[in-house]
């Protein structure tokens, strides 16, 4: 189990997302959630061990949550950390840009 610490948590999410295979795995889960390792493995040109390693990174970042169902371990996409990154890193900057554009529009229209 990974100890949660908010300072390194963003790092984990960014690192997890900074890999095309891991983004591909998230996209697969987005299309159909609750999959086994074997199902995910069958769609990738990669060894079982490789897929496990990538899933582990996604799990440590909180982007994938596993649940046991009978004898199977199912992998679910957890979108909450992406939302938090969005709120923290994207909303903030896009908002400023939008308001800067609105300011510009106002100023141009005032002088017109």
């Amino acid at each position, binding site marked *: 189990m990974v*100890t949660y610490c908010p300072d390194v948590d963003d790092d984990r999410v960014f690192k997890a997302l900074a890999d095309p295979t891991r983004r591909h795995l998230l996209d697969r889960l987005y299309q159909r959630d609750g999959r086994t390792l074997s199902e995910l493995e069958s769609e990738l040109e990669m060894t079982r061990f490789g897929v496990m390693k990538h899933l582990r990174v996604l799990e440590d970042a909180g982007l994938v*949550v596993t649940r046991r169902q009978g004898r199977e371990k199912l992998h679910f996409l957890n979108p909450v950390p992406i939302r938090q990154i969005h709120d923290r890193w994207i909303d903030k900057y896009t908002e400023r840009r939008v308001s800067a554009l609105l300011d510009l529009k106002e100023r141009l229209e005032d002088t017109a």
Partner: protein
Amino acid sequence: MTTVTAQTTQVYQVFIKATAEQIWDAITKPEFTSRYFYGARIENTPEAHRSLGPDGSVWGDSPTFEYDPPRRLVHGWRSLYSPELAEEEPSRVTWEIEPQDGGFCKLTVIHDQLEGAPKTAESVSGAGWMMVLSGLKTLLETGEPLAG
């Protein structure tokens, strides 16, 4: 982009710097839920899950299946807040609170048994549960203290 049918089992997880008891209170008492759950006043008791919208209309009224404070709560779900969704079959919501190191708890919400409620599944996915969980986290971590 491919259109995706909303999942019949949805899992959401968030780490919150709060005690299990604080989280339990925040999800079972209406004075707290009204501050992060789209304004709904939700009361979860050992018998029932009852939710009232900000205008006093009934948003939810379902049985409680498991009530184990401050660890686990399982209750039924019907989307009575929308006439269209209210006609669908009931589904189920599970809340799990697991204490972690460093004063954090892991909160997992599982909304499942959505097979007979595709419109509800669609409505709670995307921003639906995420807004609730991020609001709950903000309330507990930065809001007014829950105790006293």
